[in-house]
C-alpha cells in the first residue's frame, strides 16, 4: 500500500521492482489481487496486465483500520485482553451523567 500511495498506477512488475528481491512475482500478484478484492486497491486492464492504484487515500485507510480494530476491542470490555478506563457497557443517559456531576459538585462543596 505504501508503494502505491507514493506512486500509481503500477503493474505487478513495477511493484515487485520497488520491493526488490524480497518477494516472488506470484506472491506480489496474489497480494495485489487480495488487496483489490478487499476494496483497498482499484485496477484497470492495460494490454495483458492489470495496473493497480489505491482505492483509498492513506488517511481514509488508517481511519478504517482504527474503526475495524477499536470496535471489537472495546465491545469486549474489561477482560483478559484489555483494561479500559470506562467500559462501553457503563454508558449512561445524559440525565444520569448530569446527576453524577451534581454529586461531584456537592462533594467538592463539602470539602
Amino acid at each position, binding site marked *: 500500500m505504501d508503494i502505491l500511495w507514493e506512486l500509481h498506477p503500477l503493474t505487478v512488475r513495477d511493484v515487485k521492482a520497488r520491493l526488490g528481491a524480497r518477494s516472488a512475482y506470484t506472491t506480489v500478484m496474489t497480494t495485489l489481487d487480495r488487496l483489490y478484492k478487499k476494496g483497498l486497491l482499484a485496477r484497470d486492464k492495460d494490454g495483458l496486465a492489470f495496473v493497480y492504484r489505491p482505492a483509498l487515500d492513506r488517511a481514509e485507510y488508517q481511519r478504517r483500520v482504527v474503526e475495524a480494530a*477499536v470496535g471489537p476491542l*472495546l465491545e469486549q470490555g474489561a477482560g483478559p485482553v*484489555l*483494561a*479500559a478506563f470506562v467500559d462501553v457497557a*457503563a454508558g*449512561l443517559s445524559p440525565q444520569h451523567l448530569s446527576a453524577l456531576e451534581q*454529586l461531584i459538585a456537592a462533594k*467538592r462543596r463539602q470539602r
Partner: protein
Amino acid sequence: MSALGSAVGFGVVFLLVVIAASAIGCGLLALGARALAARGPAAERRAAMLAAIVPPIAGALVVAALALHSATTIDHCEAHDHHAHLCVAHGGAWLARPWAVAVAAAAMVVSVGRAALLLMTLLGARARVRALAAVAETIDDVRIVDSPRRFCFVTGVRRPTIYASTAALRALADDERAAMLAHERAHVRARDLLWRRALEVATLVAAPLAPGFLARRWDDATERLRDRDAARATDPAAVAHALIAMCRGEAAWAASMNYAPPVHALTRRVEAVLATPDVEPRAGRGLAIGAAALGVTVAGALVAFVDPIHHALETLLG
C-alpha cells in the same frame, strides 16, 4: 486400560472437588458481598481471585493425596472389592461405568472449548492491537490513536501499553486527562492483565456460571481500586469527572447502537472514588492469611483422614 481407568476415576474426583469448591466460593462471595465491599476493592479483588484459584489447587491436592495413598498402601485394593478403586494400579473398573466416562469426557470437552475460546479471543485481540500500533503515534508511554471514539485502555501482558484516542484526550481537561492516565498507569504497574489472565486460566474448570461471576467481581473491584490509585495520585473529583466525560462520548455511541447499559456500574465507581480514603485498608492481607490457614487445615485433615476419605469417595462414586 487400567491407567486410563485410573485417570477417569481421579478426573471425576478432581471435577467434583473443583466444582463444589468453586460453587461454595461463589456462594460465599455473594453472601459476603456487603462485608467485602466495606473492606474496600482490594479485599473484593483478592476474594474473587482466591475463589478462582483455590478450587483447582484443592482438586489437585485431593487427587495427589488419594493417588499417593493408593500407591503407598499395599493392601488397599484387597481391603474392599465391592466398588471401583481410586487407585493408580487398578482403576480399570471406572471404564465400565458409562456415567464416569461421560462426566470426564464432558468436563474435558468444556475445558478445552473454554481454552480454545480464550485463545481465539487473545489472538483476535492481538491482531487488532497490532493494527492499532501500526497507525498510533507514541508520546511518552502512551500510544495515541486518531479516532472519533473516546477510549483509553491498557493492553498486553508482557509489555502492557496504554492506548488513548485523540477524541478522549480532546474531551478531557488537563487534570482529568492526568487522572485517566494515572488510572491506566496503575494498571500497568500492578500487572493487572497478567492476573486477569491467570483468573481466566484458573476457571477453565469450574462450576457453571462461576467463571463469568468471578471475572465480573474481579474486574469491578480492580477498576475501583485503580480509580483510587489515580485519585491519590491526582484528585478524586478529577477522576470522577474524567469517568463521566468519557461516558458522555460512549453514551452517544450506545444510544446509536440501541444498547441499554446497566445503570449502576459507573454510579458505583463515581461514588467509590469520591469516598477514597487517604490510606487503603489492609483487609485484603487478612483475607489471604485466613484462606491460607483454611487451606493448611484442610490439607492437614486430608492427610490425617486420607484413608476414610479415600474409601468414602470410592463408595460414593465407584
